[in-house]
């Protein structure tokens, strides 16, 4: 059989169906902040099952990092799109019809719609208290600030920041913003829940099967072993399908209906389910006149929306990578995860790094301009190299920032002083601490069966694992079976996020195959554990057991009459260490760059009256094949290098490289996306500057 993804035979969760299944739909709040005063479901036909807040009042609070959610909100809704209740019916049409017969009355409450207002002293509070979750995903010291909308504050301190700035010849201080963005995985969120003799079976598109099982166990007060989570291949995710999304509602509906229930979201609901954090980031950097960096202070506000989800983790990673891959003696970072009355923001390809790299790498070019030093030279002078300590105190190993940066610069024909060219460099942390385990069984006929919880969402992890296994076992890739993750069968794994699977699960596989060869049971088991983590109050420790490293270069021109930017060429260089499956690795770079290009130039969730104003693919544009500039990339390998994750690395540096290319034309862009309006404003600012100078 030919590749089912191409012939159309591939089944996704939207295709999952069981006998007697009902179809679930969700009624959502039309107010961003309101008290529910009454719910009238008396007009709903009797054969439609209605799940109300009262039905779930006895279930427990959940949340992967802060336990701030209930299956349905009790009394209060916190964003436009917050589920109020859910129905299950024989058909989607019948369920939708039933929703129209339900009357909900609200009393509006004040709301906050950006992280800056939400951190003002008199801001209305989205949640009264911040209870830290017991889920495995709450693995780092979470530091909520009581009585505020800040659900986590991460700090990193090295040296003496005041002394550092006092010794600087040149200081640059600027504030940058990035817009919210939608993942737009082509397959929407979908879940099929069924109960059998008190056991819950959940078939869902989800990158975090074990965290999901843990949160569902919390919600229903069950033992995790009584919940089976099965994750078929997904039609894309990019971070959208992580932790509990619609699974709690599907399970509660199925329990009340006493029948299986499947929920598939529509596109508008996708925009209300999980998005990328908008950010406001202030950077202050000081250097000696010879270009040596002395001090850097970063302050991040990451808007996590109405429920924290993994926002604390995003803010922490945004914070700890914001100093950038440079030797800086004096560093102070404060990064805050902030509640607002917008849909939740969580994991999104790049996980906070795009935002902090945008701010930090744009600042480097402003500093270079003020110092009169070429931006590439300024970076090369300060880059971290093998054996250097990062500001967390950890010693860097397998370091390739310089190779990535030089490769990106060379690819776009970088020449100091030549206008229209820009570069950027990034470091991105991998989930640390981190755990992966895998089991390999020999089967008759020279075949092998592998159980592992690595989820397939298009990134090709399972193909990479099968390729590695075939290599280790001396068989053909086709002799390896790796069924979809099933928590009843698959050994535990932290989750399929942060570009960790090939790196972590790949090494666990090496152990499992060695174990198989040593044993006479025909079975081998392997696990890999990476310890580490940071002190949440000082940011000292091991931020990442291995760092994703990359750089980008861009060549642009601008029509100063219209503000239209023509991106002529973007190149990304990613440190792969060792490539496992070349064409798939290429696809990770290509896909990341395309997403980075959308982020740079046009993708933006517009907030209108406290709601997402463009929740459809007509008003929210994603790149098509006809939108793309010339995109090239490199996968940098090194003899004896580790296998490095590369699912996200080429995204974060792209917007900053384009912004820096515009900077070389005298245009200072501080806000993403770089729309023609913003470019025109930058043209005006440059004109004013020139006139002032004259």
């Amino acid at each position, binding site marked *: *059989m*030919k*590749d*089912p*993804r*191409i*012939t*159309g*035979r*591939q*089944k*996704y969760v*939207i*295709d999952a169906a069981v006998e007697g299944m009902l179809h679930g739909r969700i009624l959502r709040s039309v107010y961003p902040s309101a008290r529910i005063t009454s719910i009238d479901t008396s007009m709903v036909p009797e054969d439609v099952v209605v799940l109300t807040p009262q039905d779930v009042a006895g279930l427990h609070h959940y949340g992967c990092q802060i336990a701030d959610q209930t299956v349905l909100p009790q009394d209060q809704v916190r964003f436009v799109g917050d589920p109020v209740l859910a129905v299950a019916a024989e058909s*989607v049409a019948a369920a939708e019809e039933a929703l129209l017969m339900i009357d909900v009355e609200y009393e509006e409450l004040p709301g906050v719609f950006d992280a800056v207002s939400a951190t003002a002293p008199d801001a209305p509070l989205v949640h009264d208290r911040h209870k830290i979750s017991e889920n495995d995903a709450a693995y780092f010291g979470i530091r909520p600030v009581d009585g505020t909308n800040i659900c986590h504050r991460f700090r990193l301190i090295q040296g003496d920041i005041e002394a550092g700035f006092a010794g600087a010849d040149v200081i640059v201080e600027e504030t940058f913003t990035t817009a919210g963005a939608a*993942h*737009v*995985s*082509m*397959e*929407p969120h979908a879940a099929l829940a069924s109960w059998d003799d008190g056991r819950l079976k959940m078939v869902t598109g989800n990158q975090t099967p074990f965290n999901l099982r843990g949160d569902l166990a919390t919600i229903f007060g069950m033992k995790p072993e009584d919940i089976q989570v099965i994750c078929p*291949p*997904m*039609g*894309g995710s*990019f971070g959208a399908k992580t932790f509990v999304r619609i699974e709690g509602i599907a399970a509660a509906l199925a329990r009340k209906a006493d029948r299986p229930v499947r929920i598939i979201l*529509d*596109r508008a609901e996708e925009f209300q389910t999980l998005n990328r954090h908008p950010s406001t980031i202030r950077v202050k950097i000081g250097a000696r006149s010879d270009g040596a960096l002395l001090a850097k202070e970063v302050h991040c506000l990451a808007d996590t929306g109405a429920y924290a989800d993994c926002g604390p983790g995003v803010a922490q990673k945004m914070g700890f990578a914001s100093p950038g891959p440079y030797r800086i003696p004096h560093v102070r970072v404060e990064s805050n995860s902030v509640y607002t009355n917008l849909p939740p923001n969580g994991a999104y390809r790049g996980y906070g790094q795009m935002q902090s790299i945008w701010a930090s790498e744009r600042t480097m070019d402003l500093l270079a301009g003020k110092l009169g030093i070429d931006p590439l030279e300024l970076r090369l002078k300060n880059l971290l190299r093998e054996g250097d300590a990062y500001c967390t105190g950890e010693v860097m190993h397998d370091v390739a920032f310089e190779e990535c940066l030089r490769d990106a610069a060379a690819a776009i024909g970088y020449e100091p002083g030549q206008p229209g060219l820009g570069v950027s460099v990034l470091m991105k942390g991998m989930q640390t601490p981190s755990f992966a385990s895998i089991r390999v069984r020999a089967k008759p006929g020279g075949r092998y069966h592998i159980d592992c919880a690595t989820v397939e*969402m*298009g*990134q*090709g992890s399972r193909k990479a694992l099968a390729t590695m296994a075939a290599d280790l076992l001396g068989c053909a890739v086709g002799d390896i079976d790796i069924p979809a993750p099933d928590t009843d069968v698959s050994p535990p794994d932290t989750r399929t996020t942060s570009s960790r699977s090939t790196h972590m699960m790949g090494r666990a596989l090496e152990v499992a195959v060695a174990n198989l060869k040593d044993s006479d049971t025909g079975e081998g088991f392997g696990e890999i554990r990476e310890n580490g983590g940071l002190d949440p109050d000082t940011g000292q420790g091991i931020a990442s057991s291995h760092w994703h490293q990359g750089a980008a270069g861009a060549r642009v021109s601008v029509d100063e009459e219209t503000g239209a930017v023509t991106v002529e060429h973007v190149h990304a260089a990613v440190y792969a260490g060792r490539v496992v499956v070349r*064409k*798939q690795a*290429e*696809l990770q770079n*290509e*896909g*990341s*760059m*395309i*997403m980075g290009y959308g982020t740079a130039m046009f993708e933006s969730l517009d907030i209108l009256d406290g709601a997402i104003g463009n929740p*459809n*693919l*007509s008003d929210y544009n*994603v*790149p*098509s*094949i*006809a939108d*793309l500039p010339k*995109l090239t990339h490199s996968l940098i390998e090194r003899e004896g290098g580790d296998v490095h994750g590369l699912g996200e690395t080429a995204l974060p540096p792209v917007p900053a490289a384009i912004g820096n290319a515009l900077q070389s034309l005298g245009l200072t862009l501080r806000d993403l996306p770089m729309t023609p309006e913003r470019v025109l404003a930058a043209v005006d600012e440059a004109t004013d500057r020139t006139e002032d100078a004259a």
Partner: protein
Amino acid sequence: MKIAFELNGTPVEVETDPANMALSVLRGECGITSVRGTCGIGLCGTCTMIVDGKTTASCLMPVGALAGRRVETVDVLNEDDPVIDAFIEANAVQCGFCIPAMVLTVRKLLEDNPKPTDDEIDMALAGNICRCGCYAKIRDAVHLAAAKGNPA
């Protein structure tokens, strides 16, 4: 009411409300899961079907409008179709959700224009979104398929 049309070369008759969208009838009553809904407004291309030789968004066309017409989905193609082989050879796939509609659209493009340029490929596929971003390899696949020629 009963709606009769030709689906992938076979006459079919479905009992349905003619106002239902072709997408839900193809996926439901007809069991064709290679057409998939994503945007719901005819912009992403994932639900593409070919009606009387013309690529059409099945999420926007009421099934009643299909009566008496010839409807094709990717399932009409032989697995040895050069376009399928070209996508495999070029590795032009990640999650695969959008790919069957891409394959179908490329098959149609090559019938109309056996040797398309990059610009012509981009115009033909501008209405098919691939969020994984396989575009460069999809373009390679179209050129490969063009070189292989039409199926015998």
